[in-house]
């Protein structure tokens, strides 16, 4: 019997996947195209036994989510990059006080790469960032993000865009199993109050006077080391047609789908081009890129002024890297501009294939 598919818009599919992952709390503030996720969860969560709050601000939403996460629930929040800018303090706080939750950045474009991967909060922290290329992958990444957040007791981001949010697909959403997780014996439930061993969720990790914690210096070193560990374990990427390629296109998110289409056509025309797609924007799959791009020309495609480009520079010598993306926004400011089109991407790649010899030494 064939799998029964359900027609769902991207935001509804992500909402359903989050519920399948066991998310019982969500708080968000409307902002297009994220709004669809908030609306879907408002409709779905009560029936699923969860809570969805139309928060009065992004700051309130993310702090409600932090509270729910600290109490042990699988919790989520979200917005576009503009709203997530307001959440940066709480995301950093959660990274430092080790509260897991998932942030859905259903953004207006691809210009939040720095925000997701470098962050805007204080202190030494990182945010695990998954960048799906399609609704199907977003559904998987939603559940993976909850798993990774719980595994490492840290906030994780799923970074989508208007194309993902508003594309309707036929899909069958099930609970995915990513393996066992430790018990949340650190979560606040009040049961340890009055026992002399009450719990504490605190960025400074100073503990109680009767049971001192590691305190800031040791705790923040531990946090930094934890993110180093994540960097070493959780890098994810996809390689397409890289083995015989002399040119590698680096593209991520839905931009990678357009690059795939363009590159597949160029390959039919005889060009030896491959694609390297970072799936985790942080941790960035640098060692894999370094291996794949060894001795090859690298073209970086993204709809922004060159953000992922900076991470590529760390793993591929600049003389072999050419940026073929650009800022590209439509007249509403809420969607991609003309660059997100396979013929446009094909032409951008082709220009550099044809001029490879001429430009090879021009980008120092």
């Amino acid at each position, binding site marked *: 019997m064939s799998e029964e598919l359900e027609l769902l818009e991207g935001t509804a599919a992500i909402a359903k996947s989050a519920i399948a992952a066991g998310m019982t709390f969500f708080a968000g503030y409307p902002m297009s195209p994220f709004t669809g996720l908030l609306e879907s969860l408002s409709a779905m969560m009560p029936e699923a036994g969860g809570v969805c709050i139309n928060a009065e601000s992004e700051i309130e939403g993310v702090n409600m989510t932090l509270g729910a996460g600290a*109490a*042990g629930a699988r919790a989520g929040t979200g917005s576009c990059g503009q709203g997530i800018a307001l959440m940066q303090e709480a995301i950093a706080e959660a990274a430092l006080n080790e509260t897991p939750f998932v942030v859905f950045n259903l953004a207006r474009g691809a210009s939040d790469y720095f925000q997701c991967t470098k962050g805007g909060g204080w202190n030494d922290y990182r945010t695990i960032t998954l960048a799906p290329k399609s609704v199907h992958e977003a559904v998987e990444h939603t559940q993976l993000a909850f798993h990774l957040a719980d595994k490492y007791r840290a906030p994780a981001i799923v970074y989508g865009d208007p194309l993902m949010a508003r594309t309707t697909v036929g899909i069958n959403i099930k609970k995915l199993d990513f393996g066992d997780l430790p018990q949340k014996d650190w979560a606040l439930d009040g049961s*340890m109050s*009055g026992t002399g061993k009450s719990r504490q969720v*605190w960025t400074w990790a100073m503990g109680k006077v009767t049971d001192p914690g590691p305190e800031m210096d040791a705790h923040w070193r531990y946090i930094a080391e934890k993110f180093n560990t994540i960097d070493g374990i959780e890098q994810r990427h996809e390689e397409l047609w890289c083995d015989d390629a002399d040119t590698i296109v680096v593209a991520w998110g839905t931009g990678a789908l357009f690059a795939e289409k363009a590159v597949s056509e160029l390959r039919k025309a005889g060009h030896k081009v491959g694609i390297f797609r970072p799936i985790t924007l942080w941790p960035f799959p640098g060692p894999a890129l370094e291996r794949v791009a060894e001795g090859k020309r690298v073209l970086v495609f993204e709809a922004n002024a060159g953000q992922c480009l900076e991470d590529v520079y760390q793993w591929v010598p600049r003389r072999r890297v050419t940026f073929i993306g650009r800022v590209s926004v439509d007249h509403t400011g809420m969607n991609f501009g003309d660059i997100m089109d396979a013929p446009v991407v094909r032409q951008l790649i082709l220009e550099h294939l044809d001029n490879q010899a001429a430009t090879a030494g021009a980008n120092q």
Partner: protein
Amino acid sequence: MSAPSKQLPIVDSTTPPDGTVKVADPNPSLILGAHSLCPGCGEPVALRLLMESLQDLGIVDRSIGVVGHGCYGSFVRIMDIDVLQCLHGRAPSCATGIKRVRPDSVVFTLQGDGDMVNEGLQEVLHSAARAENITCILLNNGVFGDTGGQATATTVVGQRTKTSLDGRDPAKHGYPIPVSDLVASLDGSGYVARGHVGDPGGVTRTKKMIKEALQSQLDGNGLSLVEILTMCPTGWFVPAGEGPNYQQQSMEQTYPMGVLKRPGGAD
């Protein structure tokens, strides 16, 4: 030395006099150690009342605290309560998240006036409007104590601070915000009261308010708030022993004591 001219009666002090009522334990078990705040500070008294109230109501083993940022932030080290130390001003939002996923727990916030009324005014108002079943405890001393005596949104008119050296002047600094009155005006709040810890009567009445506020949460009446005026002689630049007097002559004139709202009607 000559003998005393008058023999004083010998009183048995090994047991309490007849008719006395035990109002406090000399060593509350929920307080794990000594506080580190200044002499004359009112905040440790308020903490003690809160901890005793949780015990008196028998709800300790389901109590979760959310503590903001101020001098009282150090209480997370001495409160034997499951605690989230949250971001400045955000305690009611964090408490909302906790309470919504653990509706059987008793969730309280501990915030100062800088935390609740400056940084987090919208959090407490929105949480009250949403009728969140949480209890917010405001420690109001009208000054940023932790940073050394600057003006807050509750600094009273005429009060000298490091950022209002000649006293709060409405023409320059505007007026103080009576947050309890604002919260009481919202349909989603169930219990709102204002007390103080400047003298034994104030302490006794304030403890009663805290217990009523927590009971209101247990009864599901929406957000409850107890504003407690707490002496801050250091931040007020007065001798430690002058705190209660200063409080009475300045803050209590702006912030009158009493229950502003309770289920079924105010006092």
